[in-house]
């Protein structure tokens, strides 16, 4: 079977045996986004205006939360070593793993985001803009984040370091993702933002696997 599919399947199996870790990012995402309406003045127009941006920031933080464990357990139990010395391509194996991670975090967040939009009273035509923005943006977040996770895999408490390395790299995705919302609120075209998010995704999915694999080879050394 294809290396990518094999690792994708195994990662799903592992994620669904550990349901606690699986729902953590989702719950975190919902709670972070819900804290804002409580802490801000109760003006419907204000929440409408900033709601999309808040959901984007919450999505970024939630996908960051799940990154630390991405390669850590593989490193600790030695399966990562075995994957490195196996003749199958490490790049494809890790891409399968990262995509499985995305489908268990980013995809879940995206599916739940329309629900959060309701709490911010975001108009229904903008809910779709946010939904497709997240659908295009979160895979890039996970792929870029995985590079940071691979660099810090041997460190005991790499979480904060991952955040410091990775968050600046999330800024472009955030600008175009959240920018799309304010554009559409003013009734403007959003195709350019969509294309840019798609371009970032294509760039991330082609380059990240090589960066992840060489980061892992170098840190395991």
């Amino acid at each position: 079977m294809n290396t990518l599919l094999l690792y994708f399947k195994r990662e799903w199996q592992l994620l669904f045996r550990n349901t606690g870790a699986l729902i953590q990012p989702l719950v975190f995402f919902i709670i972070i986004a819900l804290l804002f309406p409580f802490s801000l003045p109760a003006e419907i127009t204000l929440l409408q205006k900033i709601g999309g941006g808040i959901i984007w920031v919450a999505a970024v933080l939630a996908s960051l939360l799940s990154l630390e464990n991405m390669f850590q357990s593989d490193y600790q139990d030695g399966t990562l070593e075995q994957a490195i010395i196996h003749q199958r391509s490490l790049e494809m194996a890790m891409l399968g793993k990262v995509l499985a991670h995305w489908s268990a975090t980013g995809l879940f967040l995206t599916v739940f985001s329309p629900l959060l939009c309701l709490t911010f009273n975001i108009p229904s035509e903008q809910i779709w803009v946010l939904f497709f923005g997240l659908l295009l943006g979160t895979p890039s977040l996970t792929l870029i984040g995985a590079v940071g996770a691979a660099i810090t895999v041997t460190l005991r408490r790499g979480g904060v370091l991952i955040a410091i390395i990775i968050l600046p790299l999330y800024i472009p995705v955030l600008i175009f993702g959240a920018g799309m919302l304010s554009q559409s609120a003013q009734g403007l075209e959003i195709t350019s933002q969509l294309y840019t998010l798609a371009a970032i995704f294509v760039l991330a999915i082609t380059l990240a696997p090589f960066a992840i694999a060489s980061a892992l080879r170098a840190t395991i050394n």
Partner: protein
Amino acid sequence: MTALAATHKTDSDQCLLQGHDLHCVRGERSLFTGINVTVNRGQCLHIVGANGSGKTSLLRILCGLSSADSGTVLWRKQPLANNVDFNASTAYVGHKDGLKNELTAIENLRFQQQLEGINDEQALDDCLAQLKILYCADLSAQALSFGQRRRLAFARLLLSSKASSKTSSKVLWILDEPFTGIDIHGRALIEDLCVQHLSDGGAIVMTHHQSLDQSGLAKYRSELNLEAHGGNL
């Protein structure tokens, strides 16, 4: 120079792995220097040395997980970096078992088998039975004892050696302290597997703290003592 008993076979097919003038530094300390190794078919290279003398580091260099600070390792006369033939022909069992806690014993093996591109349920049972852990097949790896996990790691090694097609069979086994945590029956079992592997033309590099003189491996054995190559600052 080489601490190996010289083998007079010059046939290039016999010689699998060669390390020339290997040097390894960890932190400020030079672990070993000037190591030359040759591993031929049917040979069990036994690396000995005190704790911290660099046995594991040497093994990791030989299996391509780390790179030596100087010196070269050749697999069938080719360098190790990005060497698909080497990766397809080598199996490594290290301190870490390489097992997923969330998966059962048999699922761990099945994944390995799928990686080798084979689908044969019977072979999975056979491997577990050979290591006498068939009764653990449906237990999650987390529930296994240390010794059972070690046996399962060997079942995986055996599976990948058996399963591979002829062109890419695992000729070279690299074993780091293979008998740690394994009882006396298990040890005899693993020694038998090793002897079988060697007599089939395979090769083994292993570290082990006790002498192999009393074991079935004695006649294949050659010894490399790292303390004779101890580095200095």
